[in-house]
């Protein structure tokens, strides 16, 4: 008769790892089917964990996206000037009355004149008002500014015209409406030529801004523009420290200009104008959009990290659940382990069998968790206008990570199973 050596591969066969994986996968599926309820409950732990982590990552990414979008929507190569002492420039943090913030129209004019990288400036005075027409009113932040605001914010008129230099020079009583304000006051009707009252003062509507939409819950169409001179003379002049002080200014740079170089030049000019000694605190703050993006990304990054860390705890608990159930599974199937060893299973075969079972459990839970996270993301995005992108990379990452969880937490039970003595295992009742 045929002997073993003739029929079977010789002494130490090099087994095909993919084939072993397929066998172990089949064994795992049988084992999981045998105890459906228990498998589902165990998976639930990983499912919730992966769901939470995936969603936390997605929400964080969404926040970053939204912040970047908001800042991009502003005009991406821009600096923002604020009349506030800046002690980030390396000077000692001392603030006396003489160092109170300052930024004036003349400063901004000087910047536009003397810094060649600057394309346009948009000095601003802002205040919230109730804007009234017969039969309707709207509350919005009114921006007193110059034509430069159009370039800096990359936001033009759809109908009518923008504020002109003539309007600014003559302190004209004219306004340009944002889309949201226009709709509140006039519905779908054309507002051009109509009159609105701001604090009882009548203004002629000369233009309607094009629709820009909202980002991060901030409606960029909920605004109204008027000449900065009009704003100063009629409304906010008394509240300012000087006759040409500003609350804020945007500086738009030339296409392709280096923002940091532009910033340096602006600061040098202003320091000169205010006679700021080297190392002293400047009475103004200059931030480029680049810095805003970096800062926001840094903050959202921290928030995301915290969120993911909290979510990871649930994944850890899920992993412990896997370990628990795998230990039960090994105990229950001790006799099967003994039998497999008697039939020729090596320790590594037994170990791999249980590792694959744990990994399959985790990956199934992880896959369902990702699908749920994706659905939740889509729902959130639809109902709150907040991006929650569950991308392919996040999905693959989560599945790989849950398999890893399976290997880590399934590892101990699997190794324990493989260390059993064949006869002890077989004798177990």
């Amino acid at each position, binding site marked *: 008769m045929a002997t073993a050596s003739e029929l079977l591969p010789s002494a130490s066969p090099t087994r095909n790892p993919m084939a072993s994986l397929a066998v172990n996968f089949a064994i795992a599926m049988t084992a999981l089917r045998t105890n459906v309820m228990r498998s589902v409950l165990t998976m639930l732990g990983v499912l919730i964990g992966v769901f939470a982590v995936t969603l936390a990552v997605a929400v964080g990414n969404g926040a970053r996206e939204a912040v970047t979008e908001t800042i991009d929507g502003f005009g991406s190569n821009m600096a923002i000037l604020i009349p506030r002492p800046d002690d980030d420039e390396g000077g000692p943090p001392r603030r006396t009355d003489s160092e109170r913030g300052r930024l004036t129209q003349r400063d901004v004019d000087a910047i536009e004149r003397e810094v060649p990288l600057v394309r346009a400036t948009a000095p601003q005075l802002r205040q919230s008002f109730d804007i009234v027409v017969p039969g309707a009113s709207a509350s919005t932040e009114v921006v007193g500014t110059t034509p430069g605001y159009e370039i800096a914010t990359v936001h033009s008129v759809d109908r009518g015209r923008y504020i002109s230099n003539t309007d600014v020079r003559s302190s004209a009583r004219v306004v340009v409406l944002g889309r949201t304000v226009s709709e509140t006051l006039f519905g779908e009707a054309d507002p051009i030529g109509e009159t609105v009252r701001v604090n009882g003062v009548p203004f002629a509507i000369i233009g309607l801004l094009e629709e820009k939409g909202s980002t991060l819950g901030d409606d960029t169409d909920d605004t109204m523009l008027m000449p900065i001179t009009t704003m100063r003379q009629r409304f906010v002049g008394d509240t300012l420290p000087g006759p040409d002080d500003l609350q804020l200014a945007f500086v738009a740079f030339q296409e392709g200009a280096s923002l940091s170089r532009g910033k340096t030049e602006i600061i040098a000019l202003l320091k000169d104008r205010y006679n700021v000694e080297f190392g002293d605190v400047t009475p103004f703050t200059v931030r480029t959009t680049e810095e805003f993006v970096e800062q926001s990304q840094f903050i959202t990054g921290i928030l995301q990290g915290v969120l993911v860390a909290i979510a990871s705890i649930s994944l850890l608990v899920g992993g412990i659940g896997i370990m628990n159930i795998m230990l039960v599974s090994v105990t229950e199937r001790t006799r099967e382990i003994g039998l497999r060893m008697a039939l*020729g299973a090596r320790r590594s075969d037994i170990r791999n069998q249980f590792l694959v079972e744990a990994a399959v459990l985790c990956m199934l839970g992880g896959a369902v968790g990702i699908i749920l996270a994706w659905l939740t993301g889509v729902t959130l995005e639809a109902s709150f206008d907040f991006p929650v992108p569950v991308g392919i990379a996040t999905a693959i990452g989560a599945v790989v990570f849950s398999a890893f969880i399976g290997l880590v937490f399934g590892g101990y039970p699997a190794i324990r199973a493989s260390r059993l003595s064949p006869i002890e295992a*077989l004798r177990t009742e």
Partner: protein
Amino acid sequence: MPANAPRPLVETRDLVKTYRLGGETIHAVNGVSLRIDEGEYVAIMGTSGSGKSTFMNMIGCLDVPTSGEVLVDGTPTQNMSSDALASLRNRKIGFVFQQFNLLARTSSIDNVAVPLIYAGLDAATRRERATAKLIAMGLGDRLLNTPAKLSGGQQQRVAIARALVTEPLILLADEPTGALDTRTSEDIMAIFEELNEQGITVIVVTHEDEIALHAKRRIEFRDGKVIEDKLVEDRRIAAPNDEAA
């Protein structure tokens, strides 16, 4: 090897297995030296606690002796790694257990194919060989049944097919009829006789004289020692009933 020189398949030299139980040392097997050649049909007898099962577990490389040596097919097993022992069990020894030890919710084919997984064969070959063995055991119409759908005798025949599927030299059966009725037991013994005639060395551990009478050689254990080792006179040949065919 010349045809007339018998090939020793199992050899033990001064085999000892002791357990510690509640501070007391128990000599389960206490200095057994014997040799079983190719083609033999041996019954290992003894009462419960005589050491016969412990002895069988050691020659089956499932258990490690406290001292002494076990040689399987001429190879000392003493210093073998656990992987090498697994491979040896897989290729040279087929096990049949009292409680069948089939995997529940698993078809006859898949049960029989388990040792072939560990032999490293591909799925198609595994199915082919498992099917062939099941047909040889008269279970051609039970290939896809799970153990729950099989009678005790059928389950034990699946287990025998599984033991034989790697074409081992030795069949080790521990109380193979302990869970079966007399008539079914007779069928199983008939299968063993046929296998022995085909050249497989059969070693049956039993406490039943009825069963031992089918063997060619009878070794009796008591208190961990061999007290009798003789050829069976008046050997009984099993009369298989039709069902088993």
